[in-house]
């Protein structure tokens, strides 16, 4: 496939890996921010090509993983109501709430539907004027423009039966929270390419300057990621701390200005709780007052929700790069994709799911197991 096969070329990957090995003289810790990058790294075995000096730790950029438990519980409560058609992206369905997940609600009679776009949910609302259609609007800056567009259209159409349960989160405040943490080990970031295709990368320049960290805008295919790592390592070795764009075929400095204008029209900044990480100031978006009528939390009475997180789950440490999934005592034991304790074990972008599914350190396997050989380097 054009523009995919080219970025999975084995010989070029080996050349980039050799270049990284040539550059590196000491240990460096890099964080890939986006869960899509984490999965590409583990799925393609990119970490296996890196020299032992380079450690990749996996960032909080998985929208499914950081959506707070209280909001999942609210989603479950709304989805169970008989008048509601609850629409979600597919990978939210298996994320555990305090008691159950959306699959369970569906099997118990809730009308839960997988959609590919919030505009599909809008179409459902027009088809079913007698039902309340609720879209689970989660995600980073990447998914926000489509959600904003759906709300604008709902207002234009005067729809009274469409609303959105929103938990939009933003990358730059999360990077800043990680950098300010006393336990931080991250020395350079691979910024999330798709987020930057919307927002550009001008927001990252002050972060790189203030904290003295290289930030490299990086794509998702093996060569994209290796090139991002190569540039980050080169900056670290040379003592530079700049923002570089290693994903120019999708990202410009300014980003998508019309999308940004739409986001500004619909959303305003708000403090957000990140699952496993706590509240980060000004780290999310909520609907502006002019659009607040489409907020599902306003439309439905949800006062009773009392979330209960598993005491064994350490996904917060995983999301902040303090713990490898395999270092969690519950990994592969109490916590597996079929019995997940936290969202990081179920989401298609969750670090724990990536380690479990693509094979990393499974305790029940013998010493010649490739899962052991594939154990990522530790700092």
């Amino acid at each position, binding site marked *: 496939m054009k523009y995919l096969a080219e970025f999975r070329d084995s010989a070029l990957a080996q050349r980039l890996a050799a270049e990284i090995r040539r550059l590196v003289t000491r240990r460096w810790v890099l964080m890939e921010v986006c869960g899509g990058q984490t999965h590409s790294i583990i799925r393609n*075995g990119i*970490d296996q090509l890196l020299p032992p000096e380079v450690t990749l730790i996996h960032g909080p950029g998985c929208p499914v993983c950081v959506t707070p438990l209280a909001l999942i519980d609210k989603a479950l409560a709304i989805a169970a109501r008989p008048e509601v058609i609850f629409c979600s992206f597919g990978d939210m369905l298996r994320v555990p709430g305090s008691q159950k997940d959306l699959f*369970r609600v569906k099997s*118990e009679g809730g009308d839960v539907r997988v959609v590919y776009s919030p505009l599909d949910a809008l179409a459902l609302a027009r088809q079913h004027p007698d039902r309340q259609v609720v879209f689970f609007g989660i995600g980073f800056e990447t998914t926000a423009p489509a959600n904003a567009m759906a709300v604008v259209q709902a207002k234009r159409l005067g729809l009274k039966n469409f609303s959105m349960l929103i938990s939009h989160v933003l990358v730059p405040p999360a990077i800043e929270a990680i950098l300010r943490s006393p336990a931080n080990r991250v020395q350079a970031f691979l910024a999330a390419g*798709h987020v930057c295709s919307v927002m550009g990368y001008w927001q990252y320049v002050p972060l790189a300057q203030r904290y003295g960290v290289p930030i490299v805008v990086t794509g998702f295919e093996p060569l994209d990621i290796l090139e991002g790592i190569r540039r980050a390592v080169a900056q670290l070795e040379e003592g530079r701390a700049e923002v570089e764009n290693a994903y120019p075929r999708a990202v410009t400095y300014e980003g998508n200005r019309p999308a940004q204008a739409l986001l500004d029209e619909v959303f305003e900044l708000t403090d957000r709780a990140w699952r496993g990480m706590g509240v980060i100031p000004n780290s999310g978006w909520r609907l502006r007052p002019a659009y607040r009528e489409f907020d599902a939390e306003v439309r439905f009475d949800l006062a009773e929700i009392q979330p209960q997180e598993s005491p064994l789950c350490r996904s917060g440490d995983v999301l902040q790069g303090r713990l490898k999934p395999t270092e969690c005592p519950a990994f592969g034991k109490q916590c597996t994709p079929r019995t997940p304790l936290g969202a990081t074990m179920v989401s298609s972008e969750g670090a724990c799911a990536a380690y479990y599914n*693509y094979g990393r350190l499974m305790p029940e396997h013998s010493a010649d197991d490739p899962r052991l050989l594939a154990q990522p380097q530790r700092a």
Partner: protein
Amino acid sequence: MSSFADPGAWACPLPLRDYPSVVIGHGGGGKLTAELIAHLFAPAFGLADHALGDAAIVELAGGRLAIATDSFVVRPLFFPGGSIGELAVNGTTNDLAMMGAKPVYLTASFIIEEGLSMDALAAVVGRMAQAAQRANVRVIAGDTKVVERGHGDGVFINTTGVGVVPLGVDLGPQRVRPGDVVLISGAIGNHGMAIMSVREGLQFEADILSDTAPLYDLVAALIEAGGEALHALRDPTRGGLAAVLNEVAAAAGVCIRVDERAVPVDATVQAACEMLGLDPFYVANEGKLVAFVAAERAGDVLARMRAHPLGQRAAIIGQVLAQPAGVVTVQTAIGGTRILPMPLGEQLPRIC
């Protein structure tokens, strides 16, 4: 697994306790389905070797019969490249063929939803009749039930097939051993993505057609070409290539190593999968088979596959190793290694 039902164990089996009600994933052909079989059906019916094949082989005076059954629930009833009618014939006869059995008879049960248009029903049955002719089987018994509107998806079809296993043919995962070569008869993922493209109303640049096809003719050619060296055949239907490779690795107690670059995937299927965040290894096929062949005859079997109209894009995709037993590994395109796990339930399209 014990071969006797233990009422205490199967009344509330442990792994099923997490699911007080059936979820869609229990029908996905992955781990949840396997748990349902292992902890409920197999102990209840006293089946010890339930995981071993697509069809059961029974010895009767003078010969061996293969028996397979399958139910078909697909929405929409008609999709690019086929319909529930072709699936109902090809799905069951292919299960027989994977045991080396020549399909002979089918039964057909229809559970029809009140309100289904007679034209649609007639079209489904017409497609079924054509498919039966193509597969060279006769439909010899059937049943009709109608359920109230809202209690079915148009029509559900169950077919049960009977086939004859030729003398000397013995195929099954128990014969797979280290050193065997793994072949696939063509590109993967077409059926699943064809269904998804119409079910979800997704518009791709080119139509993706289901690959539904009767495989016995190809199987007969492979048995002739491979003889004793042909060890096992599986058709990678729901759960895709990943599910059957994991089932064989577990049943045979071997490791299967697959070279990602060698697995044929059509560009349109690859593009559609990329768009939705799906992995073609887990997408269903309805007209492909995976063959496990002793290395010395793998070339002959591959040549024979490629000479058949249903095997033109056949390829050698991997090999069987001794260790680590029960595990499927993939050599990635850029030279890394990963595990190809058994799917849990359904694949879920990603958020972004």
